[in-house]
């Protein structure tokens, strides 16, 4: 493939997906705008938002990158099956996703304490992160597998799909489940 052809193919394949990601991002922006109202109930919540969203991208971006390379190399098949590699990759990302949610809650509480800023209780942060973490992980893993396999079979380069899928699903569902968790914990607390 010549450089020009490569340029055109990347641009053409990626733009639609990026535009979908953009729409998703704007939707999650509207949710974030609404979340600003809950900040008073849980001081320090805003500090946690970028870390939480970034982790979704980290964990599932890595899973997606791995699956994309696996598909390219023919190491995994583009379908849901009890394939050892596939199961391992999914289990690892679930462990990483939930584990890091707990770490984020603790780190945020610590950072706020060090800065001497007002902060919600540690258990409140933990509960919010766990509820939103588990829900987001589930949606992201299945969403990722579904779109990557479907896209691959339809002839798309999975490399061009991973990033946008992860950020779009991660941002929208991350924010939605975050609002849900904040509401839930707000009711319990």
């Amino acid at each position: 493939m010549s450089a020009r052809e490569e340029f055109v193919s990347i641009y053409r394949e990626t733009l639609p997906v990026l535009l979908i990601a953009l729409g998703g991002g704007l939707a999650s922006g509207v949710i974030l705008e609404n979340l600003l109202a809950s900040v008073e109930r849980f001081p320090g919540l805003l500090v946690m938002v970028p870390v939480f969203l970034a982790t979704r991208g980290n964990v599932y971006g890595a899973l997606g990158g791995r699956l994309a390379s696996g598909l390219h190399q023919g190491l995994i098949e583009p379908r849901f099956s009890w394939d050892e590699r596939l199961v391992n990759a999914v289990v690892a990302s679930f462990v990483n996703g939930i584990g890091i949610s707990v770490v984020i809650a603790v780190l945020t509480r610590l950072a706020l304490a060090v800065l001497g800023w007002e902060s919600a209780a540690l258990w409140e942060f933990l509960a919010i992160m766990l509820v939103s973490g588990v829900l987001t992980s589930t949606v992201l893993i299945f969403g990722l597998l579904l779109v990557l396999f479907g896209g691959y079979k339809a002839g798309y380069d999975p490399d061009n799909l991973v990033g946008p899928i992860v950020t779009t699903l991660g941002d929208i569902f991350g924010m939605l489940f975050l609002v849900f968790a904040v509401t839930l914990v707000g009711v319990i607390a």
Partner: protein
Amino acid sequence: MPSTGDSLGSWSARSIVVTMFPLLIVLSIIVLAAGITLDRAEALLEQYRVLAIMVPTMVGLGGNLGAILSSRLSSRLHLGVATFDVRDTGLWANVAAILALAVTVFTVLAIGSYLLGLVLGFGVALSTLLFIALVSGLSIAVIAVVCSFGATYASYRLGIDPDDLTIPIVTNVVDVFGMLIFVGVSWVVLGF
């Protein structure tokens, strides 16, 4: 290629977790800085509510562009067609495509946010939003490109599977700098 055969072929759950988890912790600490910026910018976001809507998209798109590039670079490595040579026109085509995509999507972001602002009833001039989106967006895209190359090259040299490393590193760096740059540019433009 150096003796990276083992790490490139590693698909065990344990090794993925052991490789990634410490990195995730370090990255989370770094991104906390972005969160602290966001918390400090609360007053700015409350006055210009359209900016709060732009935040996740701004950062997300920057991360996307970086993720696309690094995923492509690491697949090229896996397939054995990547070279880190400035004469490799394929690499330049990748970079040019990422920058062209950045100009396109950040223009659309400004227009989309402007329209959403109109609907939700908090208007900021389209030209202001375009300026903020393009200046911060292109800066973020350049950082994403540099960082994708750096992370892919580093993990290649270290013999670590780039799939485990590059996307997390790139998206995090973009998260931190994206938030700082976006808030900074908005601050200056709106004279807050």
